C-alpha cells in the first residue's frame, strides 16, 4: 500500500545519499551530483505532499516548477565554476582548491 509516508521515506533515502556524497566526495563534479540528488529529494516531497492534500492543491507543483528552474541555473553556474577552477588550477579536487586559505 503506497501512502504519503512511503514517499517521505524514499525522499529521506535520497537526501541521505546526497548528504553522504556531499560530505565525503572530493571531486567537485561528484559534489554537484550530490546537490542535484538532494534537490530531487525536495522536489519529490513537494509533489507528494501536494498530491495528498484535500482538496487537491496546485501550489506544490508550482513550487517544483520554480525549484527545477533554480536547479538548472545552479547547475549551469556550478559547471562554469568547475571549468574555471580546472583551468586555473589544473585540478577539480576540492581539498586542493585552497588558495583562499591564509
Amino acid at each position, binding site marked *: 500500500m*503506497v*501512502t*504519503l*509516508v512511503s*514517499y*517521505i*521515506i*524514499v525522499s*529521506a*533515502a*535520497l*537526501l541521505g*545519499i*546526497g*548528504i*553522504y*556524497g556531499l*560530505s*565525503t*566526495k*572530493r*571531486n567537485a*563534479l*561528484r559534489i*554537484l*551530483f*550530490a546537490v*542535484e*540528488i538532494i534537490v*530531487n529529494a525536495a*522536489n*519529490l516531497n513537494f*509533489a507528494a505532499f501536494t*498530491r*495528498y*492534500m*484535500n*482538496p*487537491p492543491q*496546485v501550489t506544490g*507543483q508550482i513550487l*517544483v*516548477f520554480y525549484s*527545477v*528552474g*533554480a*536547479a*538548472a541555473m545552479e547547475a*549551469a*553556474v556550478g*559547471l*562554469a*565554476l*568547475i*571549468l*574555471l577552477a*580546472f583551468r586555473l588550477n*589544473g*585540478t*577539480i579536487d576540492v581539498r586542493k582548491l585552497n588558495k583562499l586559505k591564509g
Partner: protein
Amino acid sequence: MVTLGISPDISFVILTAVTLIGAIMALQAKELIYGAVALGLSFIGVAGFFVILDAPYLAMLQIAVYVGAIVILILFTIMLVRREQSETVERSENAEGNLGLWLAGLLALSIAGVAALAGPNLSVEPAAGNLPVSDLGPALAIQYPAPLIILALLISAALIGGLVLAKVER
C-alpha cells in the same frame, strides 16, 4: 492515478529501486561518465514518481530540464575536464567515508522514523479527483506571477554569469 496497467504498488517499488540505485551509482561509479548516466537514470525515476503522483507536467519538465539539459551539460563538462584527473582524485577518500556514511544514514533514518511515527496523523490516502494540467497555467500567470518574473531574471543573470566565467581569455 496513471497506472499503465501495472498496480501502483509494483510501479512504486520499481521506481524506488531505479531512483535509489541510480543515485548510489551516480556517486559510487568508478568512471565519472557512468556516474553521470546513472544520475540521469535516477532523474528518470523521479519523473516516474511525478507521473504516479498525478503531475504529468512536472514529469515532462523533469525529463526536459534534468535529463535533457543538466545531464548533457555535466557530460560535456566531464569531457572538458581531463579523464585521468577525475580518477586520481577519488583514490584517497575512503578514510573519511565511514563518518559521512554514518551521519547521512542517521539523518535519513531519523527523518523516515519521524514520518513513520507521524503516519497515522497524516492524511495517507490521496485526495479524490486530480487536477488537470490546465490549472497550472492560471496559477503560474495569475496567482504567482512575481516569482516567475524573478526566476526569469535570475536565469538570465545566471546564464550570462556562466558565459562570462567560462569565457577563454585571448
